[in-house]
Structure formats: C-alpha cells, structure tokens
C-alpha cells in the first residue's frame, strides 16, 4: 500500500531523509519512531505530496506521489505534528468544509461529521468556534479531519501530543478501531509503550536512514530478533535472596553463560541453548545452595528495541 524507494530529501547540505526504502502492506499499522530530527515528519510530508523528494520515488496505493498528487490525496489522511485550523469557523462547519473539499455529498458529509464528532468526544463543542478550543480539542479535531473522508492510508505525526491520559487512551481505542476497519496507518510518536499496543510494524529512523524495519511480532518479528543473543540463545534474569556477588562468580564459570551483569541480588546473563540449558543452570544454582526468588527470560519491549536499534546494537 505504501512503498518508497531510495527516498531522499536534502535541505541544502543537510540530509533529512537518506535513501529510505520501505514497503508497508494494506491494513498494517506501522510505528515510525526515531529521535527528534531523525526525518520522520519529512518522510511523512513527502509521502503526503506536501514536499518533493530530492531523489527517489514513492507510491501510495500504486500511485506515484509526485506524478499523481491528486490521486494520492484522495487516498490519504494526514495529521501533521503542528497544524493550524480556521479559527473563525465552528467545529461542525470546519469539518463540513473539508467534507465538501473531499467531494462528499451533503448527506454523507453530515453523517460522517456527526459520527466523528461523537467518536472523538467533540459533540458538545460542535457549535463552538475553533479558535476557542483547547490544545487537546484541536488535536481531536485534527484527527477527525484526517479520517473524515474515509482514507485508505492515514499518516499521524505525534497524534497524542497535547492530549491528557484519558484522551490518549480514547485515541488509542479509536486507532484500534480504524485498524479493524482495515486502514493502513503510519503513526509517529515518542510514547513507545502506547505504540506497542496497536502497531504491527515498526520503522526506526536514525539520522534520516532506516535503522530497523519489519513486523513487530511473530517468529521473524523485530521483537523476536532483538530478544535473541549472538549465540542464538536468550537473555535471562535471575534473582536470589542473598549472596549476589558469589552467584556472579558462579555464573561466569558455567558453560554457555556470557555477558553477566549484576544489580545487587538480581543478575542478567545471555545463555546459549534452549530451555533445557536454562533448567541446567537453575539446577546448578540451586545445588550450590542459593535461594532462588525468580528466574525468567527477559522481556523485550519496543523501547529496548528502539534503544538497541538506535545504537546499532543488534547482535545478528
């Protein structure tokens, strides 16, 4: 549904986006993450036809973003990180205006506007002037505008910024609902835990280049790839009641164990091999007289993947 090849954008001699090659299928929800200035917004703007790439090409739904701008704009919705609204219009008239700009007829426009006002909690403000809305309400209105014409692909640049925790949760539910409808969503955010809830793909951008890209879960998923060690095993966490330093010495002597790190009585280490090897380690530790409080494989979350990918630490 979204494809770009060697997408590059310069600002003078500064490379904001450098040869980005990516492909996102229909119905995928892709998190675009990276530090500030990594090129996420520039990428979105290029894909949304708002900025011409210096080099490379991109297609949305098979339509070239440079050659068929109007065609691409029919397919996409976009919520920029910072945006301005028509302050003089009421909330309802604002949405009506854009509904007509997207060629929706009057009855369908009314239906959609009412629907999105309700879904995004703007119903009480439908007659309020946009200029009087709070930051969060404006953000909701921006989201409503982006989805109003039922686009196939939606780009959301920091959609949760300015929202309170409850509104964030509502937005998350709204995006999950859109995911169920089969829309392709590309969302950039710094709140990685929330992204992990509903994203099925991740693209990590660092210095304008793609540091990591792929499905989030599954055997070939990014999480699985980052949970593994260099030897093909996993990283484990072991907590004992006392004698942490002595355990550290013991673990370092055991075969297949490497990268032992100790924080008081909690130790983490890489272990080559499968669950049988883990059971062997546990037996030896217990046999040496240690009182084991907890022993489990370490969980890999989006944040640790992001950290490792940003540093180029993935071992394979």
């Amino acid at each position, binding site marked *: *549904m979204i*494809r770009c090849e060697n997408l*590059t954008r*310069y*600002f*003078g*001699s500064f*490379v904001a986006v*450098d*040869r980005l*090659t*990516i*492909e996102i299928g*229909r119905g995928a929800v892709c998190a675009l993450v990276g530090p500030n200035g990594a090129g996420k917004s520039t990428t979105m703007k290029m894909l*949304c*036809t*708002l900025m011409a790439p210096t*080099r490379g*090409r991109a*297609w949305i*739904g*098979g*339509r*070239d973003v440079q050659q068929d701008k*109007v*065609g691409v*704009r*029919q*397919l*996409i*919705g*976009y919520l*920029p990180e*910072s*945006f*301005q*609204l*028509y302050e003089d*219009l009421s909330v309802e*008239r604002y949405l009506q*205006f854009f509904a*007509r*700009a*997207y*060629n*929706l*007829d*009057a009855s*369908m426009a009314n239906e959609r506007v009412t629907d999105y006002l309700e879904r995004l909690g703007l119903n009480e403000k439908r007659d309020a002037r946009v200029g009087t809305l709070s930051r969060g309400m404006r953000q909701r209105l921006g989201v409503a*505008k982006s989805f109003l014409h*039922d686009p*196939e692909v939606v780009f959301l640049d920091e959609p949760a910024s300015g929202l309170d925790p409850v509104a964030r949760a509502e937005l998350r539910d709204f995006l999950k609902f859109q995911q169920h409808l089969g829309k392709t969503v590309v969302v950039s955010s710094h709140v990685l835990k929330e992204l992990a809830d509903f994203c099925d793909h991740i693209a990590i951008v660092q*210095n*304008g280049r*793609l*540091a*990591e*890209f792929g499905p989030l879960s599954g055997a070939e998923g990014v999480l699985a790839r980052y949970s593994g060690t260099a030897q093909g095993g996993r990283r484990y966490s072991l907590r004992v009641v006392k004698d942490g330093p002595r355990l550290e010495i013991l673990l370092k002597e055991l075969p297949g164990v490497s990268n032992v790190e100790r924080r008081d009585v909690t130790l983490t280490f890489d272990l080559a091999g499968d669950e049988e090897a883990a059971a062997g380690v546990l037996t030896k530790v217990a046999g040496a007289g240690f009182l084991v409080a907890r022993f489990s494989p370490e969980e890999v979350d989006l944040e640790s993947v992001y950290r490792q990918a940003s540093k*180029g630490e*993935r071992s394979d």
Partner: protein
Amino acid sequence: MPATPSSDPPARESAPPSAGTAAARLEEADAPAAPPDTADHTWLQHLGMPFYFRHTPRPAMRRGIFWGAFISIAVLLVLNLIFMPYGRDSMAYAIRFALFGNESGYRTFDAGARGIFNQFYIIALVLSGIIAPLFATFSLSNERVLGTMEFLKLAPLSTTGIVLGKMFGSVYVIHMISGALLLAGVPLAILGGYPPENVAIALAGMVMACLLLTAAGAFLATQTMAFRGFAAVAGLLALGFFVHVPPLAASGEKEVGFISLFSPWGMLDALFWHEFGSAWRRANVPMLAGSTYLAYAYVLAYQALFFVLFVWAASRKLDSSEKTALRPSAWIALWSFVAVGALGAAYNADVNNIRSLDHCWAAAMAILLVAGYVVCGLALIDHPFRRERTLSDECERLAGRGERASRRRFPLHAGFVTLLVLLTGGLGTAFFYETSTANRAEGWLLCAMIFLPALLFLLLALALEASAIRFRNFVGQATLSAVLSALLLGLTLAPAIHAGTINARFNRCAWAAENYYRWVANDKPKQQYYWNPSEQLELLNRHLENAEMLAEMDSLEKVQNIQRIYQNRPVALFLHFRPWAYLLYPLLFLAAFAGLYYWRHCAFALLRKEAERAVLPAAGVLYNKSDP
C-alpha cells in the same frame, strides 16, 4: 549496522514500476476500491471551488448583505430616476424641482439611461476589479502565513483549483453584487442607445481586468509571507496603479492609442466617453492594424493570456517555491504577443488621418523596446538557480549518486534570456530601420542597438545566478544584484552616452564653423546668427575636444565634407574622434564578462567546498559510495 529488511526483495511489488506495464500491473494489484461516487458535481466544484462553502456567510449576514445591496441599488436607481426628464406636470418633476431646482437632471431619457449604466459599471468595476482582488489576495496570503494552507493542499484538489478557489470563492459575494448592478445597468445602456456590441466589449473588458488583477494578486500572495499577508496586498495596490493609470497616457496618441484599452477606464473612454471630448480627441479611435475591433480583441486576448499565466505561475509557486514561475515557452508566448502588438501598431497606417507611416514604425519600435525588454527583464529575474537545490545536487554528486556534471552549472537560462533580448533588439532595430531613411545610414549603430542590450542582459544573468548561489539570504542576493545591475547598466550606457556627447559636440562645432566661414565669405548664412560667429568659434575653441574637432574643419569645404561623411553615423564619428574607444569599451565588456564568469565559477567552487565539508566527514555513514 542493523540490517534493513527493506533492502531484501519483497515478495510482491519488488521491482520499481519504471516500465509502463509494471506500473499498470502494480496499480491494478494495489489500486484501492473505487470510492463511491459521492460528489454532487456542482459547477463550483468543477472549477475547484469547495471554498465557496467555507465562505458562505451565516444566514443573518447573508440576509443583511442581500438587503443592503438591494437597497443600495434601489436608492441609486431612484436617485437617477429623479434626474430623468419629465413633463412639467408630473410628480417626479415636482420632486426633482423641489430638491434640485430647474436646471438639474439629464436632458433626455437616453442620457439618463446611459448615466445609470456608467455609474453602475464603475461601481461594479471598483467592487470586482479593485476591492475583490485585494480581499482575495489577502485571503490566499493569510492562509499561507497562518499555515492553514497545508490542510487545503491535502485535499484532492489540484493546486490550480486551490488558487482559483481562493481567488473567487472568498469574494463571491462582492462579485454577485457587481453582477446585480450590471444586470440592472446593461438593459438601460442598450435602451439608452449604446451599441450592444460596445456594451458587450465593455463587459468583457471589465471581466478580463478583474480576472487579471485577481490573478496577479494570487501570484503575489504566493511570493510573500511578510506583514501577516499584507505585503501581497500592498504589492497588488502598486501593480493595480500601474495597470490602471499609465496606459491612459497613450489614449491621445493615434499610433499607440490601443494601449489605453489595457486600463478599464481607457476602455470605457474609448467605447462610450470619447464622444464628449474635443474634436481632436474624438478622432483618436484606438486601433490595431487599422481596425478598432482588432484592438479590442488583442487587448482582451492579452489580458486572458496574462490571467492564465498568472494563475499558472501562482500554482507552480504554491506547489514548490523552488520552481520558476514560468517555463521558457510561456515567456516566448508573452514576448510573441508583444511583438504582434508592435506589428499591429506599425500597420496603423494613415487610415483615419494618422500622420505618416514613419510615426507608426516609431510607435511600434517604442512598444517593442519597452514592453519587450520588460518581458526579458522579468524572464531574467525568474531564474532557476536556488542555492539550497544546487547544494543538494552537489552533495549528491560528491556522494557518487548524482550526475557527474550538474546541468545547473551551465548558463542555459542566461543564454535563453540573451536570445530573447537579441530577438527584441533585432526586431526593434528593424522597426528603427523603417522609421526613416536617415536611420539606415550606419550599420554599426544598428549592430550596437541589437548587441549592446543583449550583452547587458547576459552579464546581468550571470551576476544574478552568481549572487543567488553565493548568498544564503535574500537581502544579500538582492543588494548585490541591485549594485551589479546598476554598474552593468552604467557600463552599457557609458559608450552610448559618450557617443551621443561627441555627436552633439560635433554638430555644434560643424554648425558654428560653417556659419563662421559663410560669415567670412559674406555668404548667405545658413541660419540667422544670434552671436558673432567669430566669437562663437573662439568660444568653442576654448574647449580641448572642440578644438580637436575644429582643427579638421579649417575651411567650408572641409566642414561640408566631414558633415557629409558623418551625418547620421554617430558610431563612425565617435570612433573617428575617439579611436581608443575601439579598444577600451570592448575591453571593459570583456573584463566584466570574465569577472562575472569567474565570480560565478568561484560561487560554485565555494558551494562545492561547503558540500565537501558536509559530505566527507559523513562518508561511510551517510554517503557510502559503494552503495548502489
């Protein structure tokens, strides 16, 4: 380095759809389901004007505008009806008499009807041709300043649609009031005896003038974001002044009278009002190639062309500020229209008592040189050199990804502008050649008329390109461009002024010497002496340059001989008395060209160094040359 899975060939859509069939297959495979045909396809939407809906006033305001306009028109009509002629026994006459006395009012019904039309036409012109374009300009400019344009550009509308929507959608109420005024005025104009075809031309003229100014405003709005959008409004006010006022200066001249039609007031004057002027003014019907209707058609077509080009330029600039406003083909079209207009003026032969054909050629030359060089100047400013873009290209090239030698380095734009100037100079000189047999005397002069401006424009183009590459900020670019332009203009004008001064001095000396020798020989003077010829010659001799000339005029025969040789040959005369100019001025031009070309080269070299500083430290990280 983390692997980038995207570099692996994906199962589907792996090949870039460079070939048409591949693209078609891809589109077929990945094309979204066709959206339901929900559009209601109003004519406004066909024109790309969904903004109609945004600017729909609230019902109360809508009623207020309607009734306000209705009452105003009604009051105007009533006031005019009061001024109509009536029988002395009528009530209307009594009211008129009571309010304004016996002498007020129109003499006939026809005069009254025409008066109403004139009033309504001018009010409509002010509303739609001045106020509406200013509002539309502010609307578009303000949208860019506030940042709301981004959402508009995301709607499935072409950029031209957005520009048109902002031009008309935001001020449609004003145009509707104008329409209502004309709807009331036009029947009265025809009843009042105005020829229907003239009324039709007047309406077309008004529409085109309004379109032209609105489009010009839209273009200005895409150029500036200063002063919260008011900079564009100020620009349009200035431009409007030049569109409305200067053409009127041509209305009294038979050869170029059609230029006055470019102003709506000039068109009104030519169509309806000139009959009230003096006999001399009444004879000055604006014509092109001897035809009045051709003159109107030409002006309307030119305004239509300008409208299209302004909208196109505004769309291009709104789409990307890196683009030039117009393509070379558009500049050629504009220039061609200027040439056609000039030729039309040349063929305004002495139909309708025009003094002589020579005057027509002179007028044609004036039109071509003024308007043609203005077109060339605008094309010169609209150059494709953008520092950011060129720097990006240079970085790409250094990283081994871009073209080896960037096309942007070649002065193609300078060449195009120089060619356009050569055409202008060539055609203008041809007109000059036809103006008088005296103007055919010297080939050098004709060559100078063609090549000197071309040389100036070439140097200016190089200077503009170099300053655009060299300076990061607009102020630096503009300042240096202005200074260099002034210097180069001075350099171009210097030989012309020098030659002109020598020519004037020569004429004065020759005249004085001839008088002197006639006076000495007691011959009949060529002209009446006001001073003693001997004293005058002595006075002239005090100046070194005059003495130098007078030395070659030591007898009447020699004076007449030298006059015969150099009559109407200012360049030959100049070179005879200032032979070093043969060397000096070409050398100065050569030095200017070499200096500018070198500076341009240095600007590119500095840009390359900047690119190297950016690229080389990052080599292997951002710019791995081994990468495909």
